[in-house]
């Protein structure tokens, strides 16, 4: 299961819509070992393509070093599909190299519907997981 704060999910969906029709991509960093995504980092899609994404390699080095300095890891790796469903493609599965991450897919194929689904991809095996959105605590208002 992926537990994700509402504001982080909204930021990811906004990013995907903004970059449509190109695929958007990024991560949500969080403390190592806590499985708690906390900080969205939008990444440049070096491919600028409607069907492919790749993190810019120099930017990735900077972001990964920053996470290292902060004792963080990429808890969520997200990207968007602009014309297909929010499910990992064969390419997504064959290129997934972070077995500890939640792979979050957002589909921007329709304007009015938000399709967000999360998956674990380990050694070529894909398993879907629930996305539990953590809403702000209104009890304190």
């Amino acid at each position: 299961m992926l537990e994700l704060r509402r504001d982080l999910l909204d930021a990811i969906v906004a990013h995907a819509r903004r970059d449509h029709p190109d695929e958007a991509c990024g991560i949500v960093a969080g403390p190592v070992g806590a499985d708690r995504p906390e900080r969205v980092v939008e990444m440049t899609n070096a491919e600028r393509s409607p069907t492919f994404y790749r993190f810019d390699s120099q930017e990735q080095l900077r972001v990964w070093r920053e996470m290292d300095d902060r004792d963080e890891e990429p808890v969520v790796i997200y990207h968007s599909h602009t014309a297909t469903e929010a499910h990992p493609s064969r390419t997504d599965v064959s290129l997934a190299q972070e077995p500890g991450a939640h792979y979050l897919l957002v589909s921007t194929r329709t304007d009015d519907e938000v399709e967000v689904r999360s998956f674990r991809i380990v050694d070529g095996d894909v398993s879907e997981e629930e996305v539990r959105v953590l809403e702000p605590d209104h009890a304190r208002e």
Partner: protein
Amino acid sequence: MAIEVRIPTILRTYTAGAKAVSAEGDTLAGLIDDLESRHPGLRDRLVEEGRLRRFVNVYLNDEDVRFLGGLETEVADGDSVTVLPAVAGG
């Protein structure tokens, strides 16, 4: 000629869990051969048919070696080499 090589999580099975290892070489190719002698199996994860694998990023200090000399990039004592799996998909 000690060069630090930072290893990503997915390749730490080859280094008994170590996040960073030491190696020697004059070029990246030589360095990778030396890594292989100490950590068998690692080279094949980095190199395919004599070239750096397409979805593995290797950096010499702060630069992706694709922008330098690829496998022929010269390395020197005190350099730091970082390996990161590319994040990509479709």
